[in-house]
């Protein structure tokens, strides 16, 4: 920064967007580095969850939604399973 910048009113400040960039990278890379040494468990977790739920309810595997939000301190994994109407659930229960 040159002394001329003072005339132009430019101040030496950390641009806000670079801070955002660093924070975003820290979070995503922390997760990716773990993933490099350990196999991604999410596909398997999802399959097993579906299998467990399917033992009780006749579900459509296509109606299972997995949502993840990775955070620095905490991540949330939301698994949404659409359950069929009560009539279909009774059929599944009787079939067992």
């Amino acid at each position, binding site marked *: 920064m040159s002394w001329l910048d003072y005339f132009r009113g430019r101040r030496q400040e950390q641009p806000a967007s670079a801070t*955002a960039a660093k924070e975003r990278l820290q979070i*995503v890379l922390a997760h990716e580095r773990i993933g490099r040494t350990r196999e991604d468990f999410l*596909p398997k977790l999802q*399959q097993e969850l579906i299998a467990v739920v399917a033992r009780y309810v006749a579900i459509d595997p296509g109606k*299972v939604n997995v949502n993840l*939000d990775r955070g620095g301190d905490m991540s949330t994994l939301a698994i949404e399973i659409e359950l069929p109407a009560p009539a279909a659930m009774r059929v599944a229960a009787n079939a067992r």
Partner: protein
Amino acid sequence: MAQVVVVTSGKGGVGKTTSSAAFATGLAQRGKKTVVIDFDVGLRNLDLIMGVERRVVFDIVNVISGEARLNQALIRDKRVDTLSILPASQTRDKDALTKEGVQKIIEELAKDFDYILCDSPAGIEKGALLALYFADQAIVVTNPEVSSVRDSDRILGVLQSRSKRAEEKREPVKEHLLVTRFDPARVERGEMLKLEDIQEILSIPLLGVIPESESVLKASNTGTPVIMDAESMAGQAYTDAVARFLGEEKPHRFIEAEKKGIFKRLFGGRAA
């Protein structure tokens, strides 16, 4: 009918991912149901530029291998509701992407979307070939610089010989030239190729000119596609290019150097 659009260039670092994010967002903002696919297997980056990196659960390779369903891998954008992103995987196994697998995904997406954008990796190897294979249209991203123009020419050759349309001898892939990182001042000083020269050499219709702009870096820092920065020249240039892509007439802007006042000429000034 859904249109498959590849964003390609041959050369790396010219602005394909930046342009894919901007175009996908722009088309979605115009009400088109749009999905953008990252084909850069092993070097996923579109998720960062789109700002959805924290929400990636499954990727294109999980879908091809049957570990996840397509709708589970699609990330719906929280800002524009007609926009979805299909991330690339971080796996080093490039063979995970197969032609049959990609075809199935594109066929399924074609039922729900108006535009399927494919962000190509650099090079003319497998990943780039797969990204362009199913294309109906191609946006060829070029910088005003010799190696970029040469690589664009090579990728045009590939489009004309190795795309599905070429193999089936159908109507050729519609080609669009998108010149990015254009610096009018350097062009005027003769340090960079002129727009007319690039057009003359590649001789495909000019879709848009995106100026070199600091706002692109800011946009990638925050994970907001630069087209959402309506104040910035790059954002406006992308908005114009999307409008042209949809058939509107728009004069080209930001292609001439700003006439600087005496004060600015003395002390310099930076583009927004």
